[in-house]
C-alpha cells in the first residue's frame, strides 16, 4: 500500500494474509471462505510448474485476525480444504488478468470476533460502486517504499471511469499489451502517490454502502503497471457473484 495509513485493530477485520506463492492478501467471506486473486495461487509466468490444486491447498498458509504480521503468525495458520480457481483465469496469458478471482475453503470455520469478521458482497443490481469517483478503501500487507510491510495499511482510492482506464493504458509507452476486460475496473490516481502494490494482490477493494451501513467488497487487487504510476486494476466482483454463490452454496 503506497500513500496509505496504518490500519488499526478492527478497521479491516476481513483482511487475510496469504502465503502461497509469496505474500498476498484475501478477504473473509462468511466464516470459512477466503476471496482472493487467482494469480496468488497460480502466478503467471510460473513456467512448467505442475503442482496440483490439492497440493497447493495442503501447503497454503492463511492468517486472520491481526494487523501485525508477526502477531498473525503467532495466532496460527488456518488450513485450506479446497481451492477454486475461476475457469476464465489463464495463468499462461501474461497480459490478460481476466478471471483473476479464486476462493479458498478453510478446513474449519473461524470464530468471529472484533478482529475477524467477513466482508459483504455487493447487491447484483448496484453498479454505483463502480462509477467514476466512487471512493473505496483497499487494505493490504504489500510493499511500501520498496519494503514489504509488517503491518496492515490501507489507502482510499476513487474508482475511475472505464474510458479513462483504457485511455491511460493506451497511452502507456511500455508496450505491454495488457487486456482491460469488462470484468475489471480501475481505481486510483494518475499523479497522487496512492496505490496498491506487490503483496497486496488478493486483498479487496471495499466501499461503505451507506444505505445498509455495511462494507462491501467491490474489487480484488489484481494488476497494475508499476505502483503509484497510474491507475491500479481490480477484478470486478459484481460480475462474479453467481460464480461465488454457486461454489459457496454447493459446498
Amino acid at each position, binding site marked *: 500500500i503506497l500513500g496509505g495509513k496504518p*490500519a*488499526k*485493530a*478492527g*478497521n*479491516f*477485520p*476481513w483482511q487475510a494474509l496469504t502465503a502461497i506463492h509469496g505474500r498476498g492478501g484475501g478477504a473473509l*467471506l*462468511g*466464516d470459512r471462505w477466503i476471496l482472493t486473486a487467482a494469480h496468488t495461487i497460480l502466478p503467471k509466468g510460473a513456467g512448467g510448474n505442475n503442482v496440483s490444486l490439492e497440493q497447493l491447498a495442503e501447503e497454503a498458509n492463511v492468517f486472520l485476525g491481526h494487523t501485525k504480521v508477526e502477531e498473525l503468525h503467532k495466532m496460527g495458520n488456518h488450513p485450506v480444504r479446497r481451492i477454486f480457481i475461476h475457469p476464465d483465469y489463464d495463468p499462461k496469458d501474461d497480459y490478460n488478468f481476466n478471471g483473476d478471482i479464486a476462493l479458498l475453503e478453510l478446513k474449519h470455520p473461524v*470464530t*468471529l*470476533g*472484533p478482529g475477524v*469478521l*467477513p*466482508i*459483504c*458482497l455487493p447487491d447484483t443490481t448496484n453498479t454505483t460502486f463502480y462509477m467514476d469517483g466512487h471512493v473505496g*478503501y483497499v487494505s493490504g500487507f504489500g510493499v511500501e517504499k520498496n519494503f514489504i510491510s509488517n503491518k496492515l495499511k*490501507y489507502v*482510499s482510492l476513487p474508482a475511475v471511469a472505464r474510458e479513462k482506464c483504457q485511455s491511460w493504458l493506451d497511452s502507456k509507452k511500455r508496450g505491454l499489451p495488457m487486456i482491460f476486460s469488462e470484468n475489471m475496473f480501475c481505481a486510483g490516481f494518475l499523479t497522487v502517490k496512492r496505490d496498491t502494490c506487490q503483496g497486496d494482490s488478493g486483498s479487496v477493494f*471495499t466501499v*461503505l*454502502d451507506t444505505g*445498509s*451501513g*455495511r*462494507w*462491501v467488497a467491490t474489487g480484488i487487487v489484481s494488476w497494475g503497471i508499476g505502483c503509484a504510476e497510474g491507475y491500479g486494476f481490480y477484478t470486478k466482483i459484481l460480475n462474479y457473484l453467481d460464480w461465488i454463490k454457486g461454489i459457496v452454496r454447493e459446498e
Partner: protein
Amino acid sequence: SSPVPRKLFGEIRSPGYPKPYPNNNISIWNIHVPKGYVVKLTFKYFDLEPSESCFYDYVKIKADKKNLGRYCGQLGSTTGNHPGRKEFVSKGNRMHLAFHSDFSNEDNGTVIPYRGFLAYYQAVDLDECDPNNAVEEEERPQCQHFCHNYVGGYFCSCRTGYQLQSDHHSCKVECSSELFTEASGYLSSPEYPQPYPEDLRCNYSIRLPKGLSIILKFLEPFEIDDHQQVHCPYDQLKIQARGRQIGEFCGTESPGSIETNSNEVDILFLTDESGFSRGWKIHYTSEKIRCPQPVPRDQFTIIRDLQPVYQFQDYFVVSCKTGYNLMEGNRKLLSFTAVCQADGTWHQSMPRCEIVNCGSPTDLTNGAFIYVNEPANNSYQSVITYQCNKPYYDIVTGTGGDSFTCSSEGTWVDQDGQVRIPTCLPVCGKPVSPITEVQR
C-alpha cells in the same frame, strides 16, 4: 293246603271254580309276597252258601295274626257276610285264606250249586317309613334319623354330622372330616340347637376355588361351654384360614361376621366329656376376594374409571397427566395395568409419574441459550431462547421463532412444534472499529 308262590300278584279259586265247590272241603292258601310288600286281596266273584255267622260254608281271612273276617253268602243275600268289593290288606307280607264247606248245600231239599269264589291278590309296596304301617313294635323300622321308602324296601340315613352305622338304622356323630365346596351353605354343631354331644373332634372344611373369600356369619343362639377366668378351657371352636388360626371362641357372645380373606377355611370343634350347651351354627358365603383400593403415588397419576371396590380378576389402568411419564424404578413405561390376583394382591405395584425431561438443549454454534422461566431446568414446559453472539453473528430461525419449549414428548420445540434449532450466520461488513477519516 298249598303255599302260594311268592309272586307279586295272583288269583285264588275255590276248589273246582267256576264249577260248584264240593262239600266237606277245607282249603287253605298262604299268600306270601316279597318282603317290603303287603298283600291286597279282593274277591272278583263270591258265591257261598249263606248262613248265619257263616256257620256252614265260609272263607276266613287272616293276616298279621289277626282275623280279617269270615265271609259267606251271595251278593244281595240277607244272611251271611258277603265281602263285596272290600279290599283286604295285610300289614305284613303274608295273608292266610281258609275255605270251609260243610256236608251239604241243600235248602229245603234242593241242592243249590254254589260256585265258590275267585279272588285276586297283589303285592303292594309297604311304606316302611310310615309308623302306622308297623306290624309289631319290634318290626317297625327303627331309622334313628331319616327313613326313605322305595318300592319293595326302604333305607335309613342320618343328619349332617352323623354316620349311618352297620345296622343301617342307627346314627352316630361323625364330623371329623366334613367338606363343603359350595359357594354358600350352613354348618352347625351336631344336634344344634339341641345340646351337642360330648367328646367331639369335629373338623369342618370349606374349600372354594382360588380367588374367593369366605365370610362366616354366626347365627343365634351361640352357646359353647366356657369359664369366667380361663379362656375356653372346656370346649373350643377354632377357626383357621389357610392353616393359620384366626380365632378361638366359646361362651355365649356370638363372634358375629368374620371375613377370612381366604378360599380355604377349617373349623375345629372340640368338646370335653360333659356339658349342656346348645352349640353354634354358621351361615357361610363367599365373594370374590378383594384387593386393596389403588392409591396414586403422586398428584400427577391418573387411575382410569376408579371403582369403589376391586375384586379378583378386576384390573385398573394408570396414566399420567400431560407432561409426565409413567415410571417403574428408572424404567419408563408406555402403559400400566394391574390385575387383582387370587390372593388379594395386585400383580404389579403402583408406578409413579415423573415430569418429562427434555435433556439439555442443543448447543447453538456461535450462540447460546438462556432459560426464560423459573426454575431454570429442562423439565416439561420450561422455555429457552436461543441467541447468537452479537454483533458478529445474526440468528436465523424457522417460522417458529427463537424460543423453544420442552414438550410433553420430551423434545425442545419451537412455536410451530419444530425441533430444528436456529442458525447463527456471520454478519458481514460491520467492523467493530471502522476507519474514521478526520482531516479533510
